[in-house]
């Protein structure tokens, strides 16, 4: 088994007739946290969606565990052990929190029960509002639910799109912590605008700009490289 878990090679994708991804390549190593960075509209979300099979790959390959998963149906991709927290949370608004979780649970074994307990400890609000429709949750609670839905399954790879968005600082801390715990046995691909958080937990990073990967490296380097930060992320 190679060290690379997920590998994108010159991936291109269209949304309707717009050429959104124009050559995204990166290699997510097994274990650890990989962060995707880039400004609004750069194509980060589209990249994650393409990996999940929610967008068609028009060119290039996506290799997962040495297998080409480009253009497989989404559910098959998910069933290979990939979990996804979408940017818009994807809460089923008419279903209760509990039902949302139930739809998400792939298995009902011991491991799942354990993870469920862990998740509810992480986000006690969810337990409190177990019977509330997902649509009635606060913005942050929805975010928690979206994360929890991905956490409750055993995943080999987790794609998380801006988890910290809308969360109170203290919860951001918790999420950060949970990712740290998780990265022991789950590889994480993270899109994050909260640089504080990203830099704290990220191991390697890739920068996407205008639908292309334009830079990659170790998080440690990025933190030092003020020039790079300025150029692509607009922060000093």
């Amino acid at each position: 088994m190679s060290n690379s878990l997920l590998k994108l090679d010159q991936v291109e994708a269209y949304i309707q007739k717009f050429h959104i991804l124009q050559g995204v390549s990166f290699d997510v190593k097994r274990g650890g946290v990989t962060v995707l960075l880039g400004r609004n509209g750069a194509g980060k979300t589209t990249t994650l969606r393409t990996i999940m099979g929610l967008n068609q790959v028009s060119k290039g390959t996506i290799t997962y565990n040495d297998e080409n998963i480009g253009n497989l149906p989404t559910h098959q991709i998910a069933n290979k052990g990939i979990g996804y927290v979408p940017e818009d949370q994807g809460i089923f608004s008419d279903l209760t929190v509990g039902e949302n979780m139930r739809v998400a649970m792939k298995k009902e074994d011991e491991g799942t029960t354990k993870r469920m307990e862990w998740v509810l400890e992480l986000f006690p609000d969810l337990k409190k509002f177990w019977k509330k429709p997902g649509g009635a949750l606060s913005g942050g609670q929805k975010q928690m639910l979206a994360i929890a839905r991905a956490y409750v399954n055993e995943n080999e790879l987790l794609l998380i799109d801006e988890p910290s968005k809308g969360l109170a600082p203290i919860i951001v801390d918790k999420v950060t912590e949970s990712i740290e715990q998780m990265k022991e046995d789950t590889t994480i691909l993270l899109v994050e605008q909260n640089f504080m958080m990203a830099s704290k937990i990220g191991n390697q990073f890739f920068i996407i700009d205008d639908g292309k990967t334009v830079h990659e490296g170790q998080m440690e380097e990025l933190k030092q490289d003020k020039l790079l930060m300025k150029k692509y992320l607009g922060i000093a």
Partner: protein
Amino acid sequence: MEAILETKDLSIAFGGHVAVDSVSVQISEKKFTSIIGPNGAGKTTFFNLLSGQLSPTKGSVYFKGQDITKLRTTDRTRIGIGRSFQITNVFPNLTVLENVRLAVQSQAKVRYQMIAHFLHYKRFEQKAHELLERVYLNDKASSIAVNLAHGEKRKLEIAMLLALETELLLLDEPTAGMSLEEVPAIIEVIKEIKRQEDRTIVLIEHKMDMIMDMSDEVLVLFHGELIAQGTPEEIVENETVQSAYLGGSYNEQQLT
């Protein structure tokens, strides 16, 4: 200082759960007030009560001394309460320009005109373009709103709010999901409004640096109750706020 907005004993319960609990505050005119609090504290719900999306189970809201508790959303917008939404809330299948144009049209009070052609009102379109420029969205003017990236939608949301030119601006996490690069620019837009000193701004945010930077006053909601009120500095020192809201990393950040 004159209070432009005042709530008295404002409460709302969903089923058994009290989301906003007897909140009585005064929002000072032409000041910048921020609201913080943990997720689910009732901040958005509080906004909903101010802007009329929800009606309270108890208590009342006054705008410029007038009791507006019974007024509908539409009327509140018309008398000068505008808001942006936490969950992006735009017209998905219309163009970005049209989204803003509709807001401009409402501000110009052209509401029941059904004879003239809408293009007859050139100035609406011009104004819409200006606003899009201000939020750095002019190159997307002809995109269909649903196709925008998340951050772009947030900007559109702000442009629509600005178009209404209301005296009171309620901003619900305007920069959530916006890229690092653009946050400062949007902050600049907000600051610019603040500098003009003719508007009152109320902001909900989880980004503490923003709060610290801009607020004249900070309100803290906790389990629906107003537990603290003061200058940003006072609030950061508040122990409950530290332990229940900020957690560890904020302090760390201050240290580093």
